[in-house]
């Protein structure tokens, strides 16, 4: 399957610096998610997604970038099975995917711990273990002290962290994250980057995450996909090598390259 992967490209868009660098590693294993020429249109409106093709290998960590309103959340929804594409086909694990939504989407009638526990309960975790595990997860996101608070008593960033804990409480092979750190301060964000990376390495989950922070994409992703706007298509992709991870200069260069490409995409529509 990996062989057939040819990201759709707008004709005439030259590949930017660092693009299409292929690598070995996790991507050689069986694909976890395969998208083939996906198209999506709401009602009779214009196409939101068109010809989106991509393959995500098992255990891969993919970052999804794109202008505001380009269709990233829509794509994640389709992958999660919450929405159906208007055209095209997709392959996803039959047990679905864990999903951290863009808005935290906590249940207002449950406390922070209750929200996390519900995820564990619906997964079949026993009562005693649930309490312990939920507490651990909340500690992980630095919210041990707010376990008993209701969502309306939490700040925006705290709610987002509870949602993160909840999505980690699910043990699905695929984890979709929609701007998971948008409402967090730089330092908390950095801490959680490390935690997320640790969880990823330990559990070998496949993670697709959306972010507007190009540095975050380069920091976490093994691969970065760029979605164009109206309609959304994968117009470019970059592999993030180990060099980018260790060498700040290389990372900065890649970040600059991606940002430039993003700017170009947006300019096309302005």
């Amino acid at each position, binding site marked *: 399957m990996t062989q057939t992967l040819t990201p759709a490209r707008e004709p005439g868009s030259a590949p930017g610096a660092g693009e299409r660098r292929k690598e070995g590693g996790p991507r050689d294993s069986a694909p976890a*998610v*395969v998208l083939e020429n996906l198209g999506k249109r709401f*009602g009779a409106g214009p196409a939101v997604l068109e010809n989106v093709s991509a393959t995500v290998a098992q255990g891969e960590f993919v970052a999804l970038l794109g202008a505001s309103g380009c269709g990233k959340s829509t794509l994640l929804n389709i992958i999660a*099975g919450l929405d159906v594409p208007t055209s095209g*086909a997709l392959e996803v694990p039959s047990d679905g995917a864990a999903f951290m939504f863009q808005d935290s989407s906590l249940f207002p009638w449950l406390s922070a711990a209750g929200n996390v526990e519900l995820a564990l309960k619906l997964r079949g975790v026993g009562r005693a273990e649930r309490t312990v595990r939920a507490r651990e997860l909340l500690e992980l996101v630095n919210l041990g002290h707010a376990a008993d608070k209701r969502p309306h008593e939490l700040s925006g960033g705290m709610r987002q962290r509870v949602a993160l804990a909840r999505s980690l409480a699910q043990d699905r092979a695929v984890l979709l994250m929609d701007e998971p750190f948008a409402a967090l301060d730089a330092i908390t964000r950095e801490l959680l980057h490390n935690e997320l990376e640790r969880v990823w390495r330990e559990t070998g989950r496949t993670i697709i995450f959306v972010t507007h922070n190009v540095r975050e994409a380069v920091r976490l992703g093994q691969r970065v996909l760029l979605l164009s706007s109206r309609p959304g298509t994968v117009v470019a992709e970059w592999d993030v090598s180990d060099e980018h991870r260790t060498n700040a200069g290389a990372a900065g260069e890649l970040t600059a390259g991606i940002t430039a490409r993003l700017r170009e995409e947006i300019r096309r529509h302005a």
Partner: protein
Amino acid sequence: MPETPTATLPAGGSAEDLRTLEAGLDSLQSEPARRRRLDLSRILLPLAALLVLVLAWQFYVTLGLRRRDQVPGPLDVLGSLGLLWQEGTAQEAIWTSLQRGVVGFAISIAVATPIGLLLSQVRVLRRAFGPLVSGLQVLPSVAWVPAAIIWFGLSDATVYFVMFMGAIPSIINGLISGVDQIPPQYRRVGRILGASRWEMALHVVLPAALPGYVGGLKQGWAFSWRSLMAAEIIAMGGTLGFGLGSLLEQGRQLADMGVVMSAILVILFVGIAVELLVFAPVEKRLLRGRGLLAGSTR
């Protein structure tokens, strides 16, 4: 482990072909087409359910557990209804009741909405009169009959008064409970935008509470209609028109189950028609406009 839940990849063909096919699929999926299909099932399914009930009824009658004059079969009732129709009694009763129901309900809404808004916005009034409204809501219609007769004699005003006392507290309570469920953030936004108390009620509270309010209106309609039936039993003919309530009571007084069942069927039918033709479309539109329709079974 990976499976293909949706395998609708169009098979081959040029890009142009593909695009037209896609457009075709899209237009099939677009809103108006779907809406029409749904509407048919909205009519057919209740009819099917009704049919099943009628068959069950016929079956019960066929069992012969009860004497036929006590539990008439569907055909007997149809005959009875046909007779009432020929005489014009049925039409007259439906027309009188429906007219009263619509007028009375409209007035109830017009009276109850401002009161409900006021109570839901002003804490002191809410505390003082809220329990009273709930109390009035549980008063049976018949409690109002003596007072209504004293004040309005045997005129249509009496019927309307009994209806109002049934419908108004219910609508007020429905609106209040709708308002209570508004996320407080909406009011905060309203304040920030500089809304006066009146503007807040009109531009924020009322639209935000609308879905709950319409649910309350549905209950209010049920209260009005039932109160109307109760009011129509006070007296028959003369200065008071002959409505469905009168028909039902007449059947009961004569121990004529055919007439009783006919009246029940007609009332049921009117209720279902009002639900299907008035409330269902309004609710659907409201929910659709707010994006609450996805996943709902409406």
